[in-house]
């Protein structure tokens, strides 16, 4: 499989480059754009980015593995990111995580993101989402859900046509 970036995305990325004094500074934004488009970041995408920015691929791999928001595996259509940092943990986020996993048939003791076999949902325990005042919080794709109750969670996990 050869890696091709659609012309329009490429134009966008070229434009993005002009925002930075140094090419390498655009690395994170490149990766976000590629992840948004392809769903996850493949080695080919990293090598492409490295070549575009005059870096070695190891430097891009460093970034991709450093930031948890970059993923190297595909995720489900619904990506639930449940906060597990202090405020949310105190407000019951471990229970929420467990609940999601149970409802979706996943193992809540496994580290890292987990996806249902049908590819519909991914559940991930993440660090602080910066809405501690409204704990517990979670994100489904790009939407924030605050003060999440067990009932809300159950609904989200179960409801087939749930749209974030």
């Amino acid at each position, binding site marked *: 499989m050869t890696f091709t970036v659609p012309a329009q995305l490429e134009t966008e990325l070229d434009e993005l480059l002009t925002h930075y004094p140094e090419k390498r500074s655009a690395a994170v934004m490149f990766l976000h754009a590629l992840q948004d488009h392809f769903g996850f970041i493949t080695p080919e995408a990293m090598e492409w980015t490295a070549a575009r920015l005059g*870096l*070695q691929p*190891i*430097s891009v791999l*460093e970034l991709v593995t*450093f930031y948890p928001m970059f993923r190297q595996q595909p995720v489900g259509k619904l990506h639930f990111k449940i906060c597990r940092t202090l405020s949310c943990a105190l407000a019951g986020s471990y229970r929420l995580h467990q609940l999601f996993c149970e409802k979706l048939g996943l193992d809540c003791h496994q580290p890292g993101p987990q996806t249902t076999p049908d590819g519909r949902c991914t559940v991930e325990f993440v660090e602080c989402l910066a809405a501690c005042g409204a704990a517990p919080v979670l994100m489904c794709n790009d939407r924030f859900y605050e003060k999440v109750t067990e009932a809300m969670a159950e609904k989200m996990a179960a409801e087939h046509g749930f749209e974030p």
Partner: protein
Amino acid sequence: MSVVTNHSTTAVPVVKTLSVSVNGRWLAVPQTTAHPLTGQPVATTMIQACEIAGVTVPHYCYHAKLAVAGNCRMCLVEFGTPALGPDRKPILNPDGTPQIRKSPRPAIACATPVSPGMEIYTNTPAVEAMRRGVLEFLLLNHPLDCPICDQAGECKLQEYSVEYGQAASRSVDEKVHKPKQVDLGPRIVLDDERCILCSRCIRFTRDLAGDDALGIVQRGSHSTLTHYPGRPFDHNYTLNTVDICPVGALTSKDFRFQMRVWFLQETKSVCTSCATGCNLLIGSRENKIYRYVPRQNDRVNSCWMCDSGRLNYKWIGRSDRLTQCQVRDAQGQMQLRTWPEAIQEAAGRLKQAAPGSIAFIASARQTNEELFLIRHLARKLGAMADSAPRTGEGDAWLVNADKNPNRLGAAIMFGLDRSALPVTSDTAPAAVGSADMLVGPGVQLARSGQECPRSIMGAAAERIGAKLPKIAEGIGRGEIRTLVVLGEDATKHLGAALLGRLENLIISDILPNATTPRAHVLLPGCAHAEKRGSFTNAQGRVQKFLKAVEPPGQARPESEFLVELVRAVTGEQFPQTVEGLFNRMAKETVAFQGITWAGLGDLGQGIAVEVLKT
């Protein structure tokens, strides 16, 4: 005739100093020091000031030849600076000394610049407590597998743990496990659990070797040093990362599990694989060589050496070494002989040969002293003498395209030595080709003075081997009937057919080659690791090397038996020690004038070279 000198004409800049105190002792330190990569003046740091004061600050990530990273925190120290009043003037104590305001927080000595009047404290209880704390963190996930670790015995983690570590871990959690035995490249194995993430290896390969091949992936306690999958860590300088890795994370496939480092006897030597002559230490035990490691010489190789030179030692222990003196009898059979017999035989043949019927080919892998004796003998016998060029690939850093370790020595002995200029590169720091030796191609550096040594070398290289065609012609015409060959395969330079026409072929070598079976007299010689001597490297630096192991069988240092041969042929007695011989050579060779064996020291000395530009 034009003259090339390696004088630096620029005036030595006045070094501005400032005064700081280290643990209560005041000293003057330069305000700036040269940046290890760019050579630009940058503010002197506390760790450098401490070094000048003779106080060692424990450190991991700091390396004098690399960019500062400041990530390990091992070098934390306390410090204070003069207190200033509202008028920005120092507040004075009643006794007139400036009042020192101690910083409430420590600072990393490797990255903090010194300032006038600064007081640095490296031995307070607080500093020691910080070291203990840092070390506890570094050891938190460390496997503590010193008993099976190659670095044990020369490991900074081990050393500082003895001083500041704790016997038992306070952590109740299981340690984080990371990849073991990672095959990083053809010559390196990595144990990620031992890595303390100092990033020295990353900075070396990125900034000096110019190959940004290594990086740290993941985060926090899962951080893992690695290369990009499918891209092996493979260039000609990778093994230097094993040297600078302060722990046992990066290990050499060649040396791994071969020998405990504390059993190794270390002998100062130089590399013979090219004309650069990187300084090195031979690690040997019970007459076996286990490794070469670079030895710091800022005028030649800094702290580095190339992988190919480093690994080129195994031939020394080869089982097919020439170990016996042999002489061909009337029936054409080789017979074993003692040294006196073999020397008599060789001397007899040389004395009987008609003047002008003798030629010498002595390798530019032989030492200055040996070549000096050959030159003397050749002059006495009215014979032609030359060396053979040996070229290969060079690179933009250390590796020279000339593979003769003593090219310049040979050129001086057999070609260049007419008159010379007393110039030593010691008076002109970094002016002579050393600048481009010290940093790699990954660095933009004003390479001043590079032209000098390269052009010297160019001219010298041309002169080596210039007489070989004449020698071949002489043999072809039957004028040359006696050939003495030291350390070269003459079939390569003259052709096998010509050698068959010789009446006398006297050979000294280390390993058998296509020429050795044709010898009438065969004298087993020594590898450099088995003798003492000196080479003149490509920059015109005379460097000595010492003996690490015993030669096998009857093999003897060439300088020893050449002294005997000279005496047997001419009746002259040359000094029998290498020191004496070197000093005699220096006296009788204009280019080496003023240099003594003792004066060479460990780091060698620059010589006077005059070049005839043709």
